[in-house]
């Protein structure tokens, strides 16, 4: 009744074993790092906190608001978790959330859980925290803008990576899945951004001590800025490229006999796989994507201002 299956939770059967295992490996490395880091920096006191935060992300996904045409803004929470808890704890919290969604509700599969955790729990944290970390010492207005942009981008990047995984597994055709996923997630990401910004503004008004820079930066050094920027740039550059020229990517895949091998041993494809079209026509789509991001940035600045102007009393 409460959880509509979000299009980011891939069920079992859609990804090939190879892709599933690759992302399980990447996820296990990141979660292992997160465990050793949190074991070092956090005490046993943080364990109930992280458990409750995971339950909070779960429960917060129920709080939706009507957007247009019957859809509703819906909360994923990766960026917010990373901002309020720090990146490593954020990864653990999101891992627990996605694991329980898969185990208890079959929202997302078990064999593909590694990919799901990577898309929704690690990618969103890296982008969310990385971009926020850049402005962590700035005023609240700048931080809200960064948080909004980061959570929108994190949602889009998760949708992009999900589409790519489905395509690499031969479970969907890129020219269809990519525009569909990105299209569906543009408003979802916008809802995510609005909710994250408003929630942070509320926390800042009521308990600013929870968002102080030392605390949020626990375990999150400057390396996160670089990681966040690189991953964000990858997402920003890749999505217009891929959606501007899905035929190109598809043709490359076909020429390499990709869809066929895709089910048995796709290992041979990845090294050969290059993006052969950095021509001028695609520059325009990249620019279009960037203009879109700038417009969003402007909107978020306006929103941040309006939220900053109206604190009750501080």
């Amino acid at each position, binding site marked *: 009744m409460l959880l509509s299956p979000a299009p980011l939770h891939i069920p079992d059967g859609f990804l090939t074993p190879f892709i599933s295992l690759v992302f399980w490996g990447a996820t296990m490395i990141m979660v292992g790092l997160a465990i050793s880091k*949190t074991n070092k920096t956090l005490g046993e006191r943080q364990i109930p906190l992280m*458990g409750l935060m995971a*339950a909070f992300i779960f429960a917060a996904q*129920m709080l939706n608001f009507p957007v247009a045409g019957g859809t509703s803004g819906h*909360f994923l929470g990766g960026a917010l978790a990373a901002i309020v808890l720090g990146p490593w704890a954020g990864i653990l919290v999101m891992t627990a959330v996605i694991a329980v969604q898969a185990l208890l509700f079959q929202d997302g599969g078990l064999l593909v859980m590694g990919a799901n955790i990577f898309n929704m729990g690690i990618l969103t944290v890296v982008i969310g925290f990385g971009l926020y970390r850049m402005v962590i010492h700035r005023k609240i207005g700048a931080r809200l803008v960064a948080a909004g942009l980061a959570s929108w981008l994190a949602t889009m990047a998760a949708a992009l990576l999900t589409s790519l995984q489905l395509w690499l597994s031969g479970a969907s*055709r890129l020219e269809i899945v990519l525009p569909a996923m990105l299209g569906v997630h543009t408003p979802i990401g916008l809802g995510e951004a609005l909710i994250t910004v*408003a929630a942070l503004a*509320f926390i800042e008004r009521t308990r600013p001590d929870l968002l102080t820079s030392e605390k949020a930066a626990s375990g999150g050094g400057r390396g996160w800025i670089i990681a966040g920027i690189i991953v964000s740039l990858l997402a920003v550059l890749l999505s217009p490229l891929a959606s501007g020229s899905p035929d190109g990517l598809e043709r490359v895949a076909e020429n390499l006999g990709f869809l066929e091998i895709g089910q048995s041993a796709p290992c041979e494809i990845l090294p050969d796989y290059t993006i052969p079209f950095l021509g001028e026509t695609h520059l325009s789509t990249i620019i279009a994507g960037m203009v879109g991001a700038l417009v969003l940035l402007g909107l978020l600045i306006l929103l941040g201002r309006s939220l900053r102007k109206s604190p009750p009393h501080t």
Partner: protein
Amino acid sequence: MHINVFDHYHFQDSLIHRLDARVKAAVTVAFILSNAILPDGNWLAFAVAWLVLLLGNDLSRLGLGYTFKRSYIVLPFVLVAISVIFSPLGKPLAQWHLGFITLIPTNFGVARFFSILVRSWLSVQMAILLVATTQFPDLIHAFEHLRLPRILTTIIAFLYRYLFVLTDEALRLLRAREARSASLQGRKRGGRLTWRAKVTGSMVGQLFLRSYERSDRIYYAMLGRGYTGHLRTLNPHAMTRLDWLALILSLAVLSFIQLLGWVR
């Protein structure tokens, strides 16, 4: 809110219910993996896998259709895979003209699509069977025995325990918003989109603060009762001879399915 709203555990006394959670978790994962590596279009192997699933349903005394009735959750995702039907590989089967577009389903594409469909449909049913026959705390404990890091299992245990409490809290917030939102007939409800988002965001922030403060209280309470960093249980979680037998038998059946799928 009662715990049963979320938990799909089905109280029953059966062979499958009594099996060790580790065995059930391992067999479920093995079953899903087995489906994933079966080649496309091996309908005989898929059919045997389905029989195994039906047997599981029957042995757990849930009724043959129990998992089937709950398996529709994968349906929205099937939309994503429909495009595969028109894969450029393989022999064309037909030609459909839809306005400007010509769709050509191929034999390769159709086999691939239905294989994906069957794989995910079988896999999700096995996962449903797992949670319907295993108490979630037992499952968490099983993962602990299977060497999942303790910090993760503890977080998951807390998540499970407080999911219901915080969902209640969220429902209370929603009810409060509802109670304060009057609407007139014939007039649009609510303010601008950003305003509505702001209200929802504040609710999320509020829920965050309540969870945060609750975690402090929980920590003090647990400390007061001698918490040392991990959760305890009375269930001994010992593997019996029956558990081993069930594990070996299931793995043998899965190997047989693989044999059926690959040897022609």
